[in-house]
């Protein structure tokens, strides 16, 4: 009898502990979501034309009811024509870069990679530059940037596979990415050299630096919808990505078809990354540091890690964009900011997580 009671208590305790663990982690996600909404609110109020939180909330309320009073017309225009599209876009871009980085790191079982480390960004930049000097339309530039982004990461992967039979595969993959980046950087220089200095050269230069200043609501949807679809597809593989962290052979013995999943993830990540590059240039570091940071907080399980990286990444890029547009009289290109801030953050993360990832 006593044994049975003891057994029951033990089981109950276990269940309690399990529940606790689960709640804890979901808590982080809830907290991050609240934080993100707060940052979005603040971002909507910040800018050259100051909007108070009060004005913001009442305008939104009126807008939802359908009729905005004349006194708030100007606020409404700025809010819905200028700031909201920009805020939405930067959240989506941050989310896209972060989840691609997270997926890449799990898939290549390598904490040191991200789409930009493996050459996607530079490849996509070259594709776009090519489109610009040949005076192509927006869609074609998009396609070219996607195609060359995909080409760059594929070549990186194939070379590292051929080279890295032995030795430290993590380093080999990163080094191959460096080689490919250098090559495509040279290609970009060629296009710049050949470009018309009056016309396409500044276009390429500004395109590569990127800016969210001219984003419209249409742009926001244009990037938001495919990014959302991409995120949903990547999220479907969250558990398989966990398994892939143990390597191809073990994953196969556990019933996961790595070759198909790897292709899907590379293609989807490259699409959403090259889309964001086409709006705001080659933003460095986000895809590398955000997954690291998120992993430090919620651990490597992609079921938690992926949504958490999306939230942190979106919030981070939004804050960066706020700084870019409010810190100085002129706008600072956001890619410059993320590099200046990203590099030291990454070094800090490296020092903190030296023991294990």
């Amino acid at each position, binding site marked *: 009898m006593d044994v049975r009671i003891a057994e029951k208590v033990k089981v109950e305790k276990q269940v309690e502990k399990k529940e606790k*663990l689960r709640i804890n982690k979901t808590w982080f996600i809830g907290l991050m979501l609240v934080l993100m909404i707060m940052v979005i609110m603040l971002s909507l109020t910040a800018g050259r034309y100051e909007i108070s939180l009060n004005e913001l909330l009442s305008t939104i309320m009126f807008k939802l009811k359908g009729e905005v009073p004349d006194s708030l017309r100007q606020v409404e225009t700025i809010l819905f024509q200028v700031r909201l599209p920009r805020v939405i876009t930067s959240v989506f871009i941050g989310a896209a870069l972060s989840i691609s980085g997270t997926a890449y790191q799990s898939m290549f079982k*390598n904490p040191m990679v991200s789409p930009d480390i493996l050459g996607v960004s530079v490849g996509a930049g070259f594709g776009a530059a090519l489109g610009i000097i040949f005076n192509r339309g927006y869609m074609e530039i998009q396609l070219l940037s996607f195609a060359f982004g995909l080409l760059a990461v594929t070549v990186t992967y194939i070379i590292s596979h051929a080279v890295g039979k032995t030795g430290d595969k993590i380093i080999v993959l990163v080094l191959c990415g460096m080689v490919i980046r250098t090559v495509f950087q040279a290609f970009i220089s060629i296009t710049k050299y050949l470009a018309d200095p009056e016309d396409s050269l500044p276009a390429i230069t500004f395109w590569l630096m990127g800016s969210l200043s001219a984003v419209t609501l249409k742009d926001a949807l244009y990037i938001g919808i495919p990014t959302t679809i991409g995120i949903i597809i990547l999220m479907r593989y969250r558990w398989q990505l966990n398994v892939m962290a143990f390597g191809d*052979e073990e994953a196969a013995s556990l019933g996961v078809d790595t070759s198909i999943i790897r292709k899907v993830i590379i293609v989807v990540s490259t699409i959403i990354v090259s889309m964001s590059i086409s709006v705001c240039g080659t933003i460095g570091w986000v895809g590398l540091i955000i997954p690291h940071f998120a992993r430090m907080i919620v651990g490597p399980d992609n079921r938690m890690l992926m949504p958490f990286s999306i939230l942190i990444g979106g919030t981070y890029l939004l804050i960066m964009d706020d700084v870019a547009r409010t810190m100085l009289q002129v706008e600072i290109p956001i890619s410059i900011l993320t590099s200046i801030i990203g590099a030291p953050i990454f070094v800090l993360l490296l020092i903190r997580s030296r023991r294990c990832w």
Partner: protein
Amino acid sequence: MLQCRKLTCGYGKKITIKDIDLSFEKGEVICLLGSNGVGKTTFFKTLLGFLKSVSGEIFLLGKPISNYSKKNLAKHIAYVPQAHQAPFDFSIKDVVMMGRTIHFKRRVPSSKDWEIVDQVIDELGIEYMKDDSFMSISGGERQMVLIARALAQESDIIIMDEPTSNLDFGNQSKILQVIKKLKEKNKLIIMTTHSPNQAFECGTEVVIFNDKKVLGKGNPDDIITDQLLKQVYDINGKVYELHDSDLKVCVSC
């Protein structure tokens, strides 16, 4: 249950195993012995479908394994690699749960999967570390966790690649005890080992690979002899019978 017919395997032009015929049944513990580089690992990789056979075929329940999808093959054959490091620090429970991947109904673990994982963890007596992380435990414990993962997979065949390598004497013995337990559950275990003594201790059958061929197959007590040690390992070893039990041991020199 598992049969190799005229199986030849190797990497490209380098043939390591040639024209072998073997068949294994449930409830057996097969110990593969052979010197370094004789092709044990290549043979395993072929069994697991990581490598295509050069010629010949492997049959699982009468059907060639090349006809099985990865998912279906994983339902029948589980693999326990040598204890290794992982790039990311998953918890023990998550690692064991990975064995359930093929059984998921909706892409992520269900409460039933968690039940089975808890059950397997209890069975192997590793519940004390189930909330620890994979990188924080010792090599022997990691090997236990990888065995737990294979058990959670609920397949009939478990292939183990040198399950006791890099382990101390105590941990080696613990792993062998677990293997004996698995045999009682009517599973087919195929393992490689560098120690003929382990074949005496837990093997129902040994298969000796030598010079691309199967040199011997059968009861360890019959197969492993002084002469065989000379032939396979090129040493003047001796096989002794312990006088207080019917266990045999090999001694080199």
